[in-house]
């Protein structure tokens, strides 16, 4: 009997629960919610699986634990889940969570469990696209990730915090801290979202992609922002966040050498970040249940072969796009 615990029942957590219920791989689903009494209506929509709703407290015993609650404290929860003999799928995009989860590698190896870090939209889908695009190069010199849009309210709050924290960038083999809100760049996202100004923020992609592209001279991540976003970044959120911060997009620009020619490859995707994040996390949970994923702590950018993931995402309606026209320079 396979049991999955989804901790966090916000916009993304609920979407994950729906996907897992529909997958047919899960017999029992445990939903962790801050206010379990508000989950009755949602639980009634989930059929064919045993559902249990729990309040915050010790993690339940499960084969896979999906951490879909707001950023912060994911490392401690992942340690607890590994102690329970559970695989872990984390959706956090906070730098401290990501760094902490990656440090659990030896613990996860010893327990023969996988800790999948940043299994969401960005990071997550962005890492898969970077990995896929990078495979076409003989040598990758630069990787630049840009994103726009957010998932649910917690994701928007985390992005609001990230706009004021120090951004981490990989430059010539070392880490550089740069102020958020700088580095303005006009980025063309897939149509119909089009061009948006993007700026530095404390995003996790450089940390998650550095292991896959050790030779890269530059790895950066930026996020779309309006003038109001930049002006109000230092203030508390002036109005409640939207229920869903989509539609959104992710764009990965890879520069390097292919067939001895300097080449630029641009790959991206457009979707509701909450939907894409849920699909990535659900796939990670399902494949963890099937035991086909490697043990240890890793991100989707560290996979040897990202194609099965991209194929499965395509089956679930999340498609990538490549920018054609100015590829070779």
């Amino acid at each position, binding site marked *: 009997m396979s049991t999955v615990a989804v901790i966090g029942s916000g916009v993304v957590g609920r979407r994950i629960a729906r996907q897992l219920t529909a997958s047919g791989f899960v017999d029992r689903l445990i939903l962790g919610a801050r206010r379990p009494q508000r989950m009755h209506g949602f639980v009634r929509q989930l059929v064919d699986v045993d559902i249990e709703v729990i309040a915050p407290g010790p993690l339940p015993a499960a084969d896979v634990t999906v951490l879909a609650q707001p950023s912060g404290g994911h490392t401690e929860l992942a340690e607890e889940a590994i102690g329970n003999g559970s695989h872990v799928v984390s959706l956090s995009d906070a730098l401290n969570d990501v760094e902490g989860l990656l440090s659990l590698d030896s613990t996860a190896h010893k327990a023969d469990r996988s800790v999948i870090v940043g299994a969401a939209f960005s990071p997550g889908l962005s890492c898969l696209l970077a990995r896929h695009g990078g495979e076409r190069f003989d040598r990758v010199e630069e990787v630049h990730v840009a994103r726009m849009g957010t998932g649910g309210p917690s994701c928007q709050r985390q992005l609001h915090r990230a706009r004021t924290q120090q951004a981490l960038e990989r430059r010539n083999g070392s880490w550089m801290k740069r102020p958020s809100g700088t580095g303005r760049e006009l980025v063309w996202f897939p149509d119909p979202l089009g061009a948006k100004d993007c700026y530095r923020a404390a995003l996790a992609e450089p940390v998650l992609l550095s292991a896959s592209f050790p030779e890269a001279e530059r790895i950066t991540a930026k996020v779309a922002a309006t003038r109001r976003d930049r002006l109000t970044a230092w203030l508390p959120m002036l109005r409640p966040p939207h229920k869903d911060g989509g539609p959104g997009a992710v764009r990965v620009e890879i520069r390097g050498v292919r067939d001895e020619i300097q080449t630029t490859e641009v790959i991206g995707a457009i979707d509701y970040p909450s939907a894409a994040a849920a699909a990535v996390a659900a796939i990670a949970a399902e494949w963890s249940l099937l035991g086909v994923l490697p043990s240890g702590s890793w991100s989707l950018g560290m996979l040897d072969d990202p194609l099965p993931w*991209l194929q499965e995402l395509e089956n679930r309606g999340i*498609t990538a796009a490549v920018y054609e026209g*100015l590829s070779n320079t």
Partner: protein
Amino acid sequence: MRALRRAILAMGVGTAVAAILRLRGSGGIPPRQGKWRQLSGPDFR
């Protein structure tokens, strides 16, 4: 005095031109070449 008048005139003309450009120009989005192509099955093999 003559130089001062010329300087004021030059500044006025410059301000007028800048104001016209600022008000009429949208800034806009720079032109681009190429287009996005959706990746599908064959691209993932």
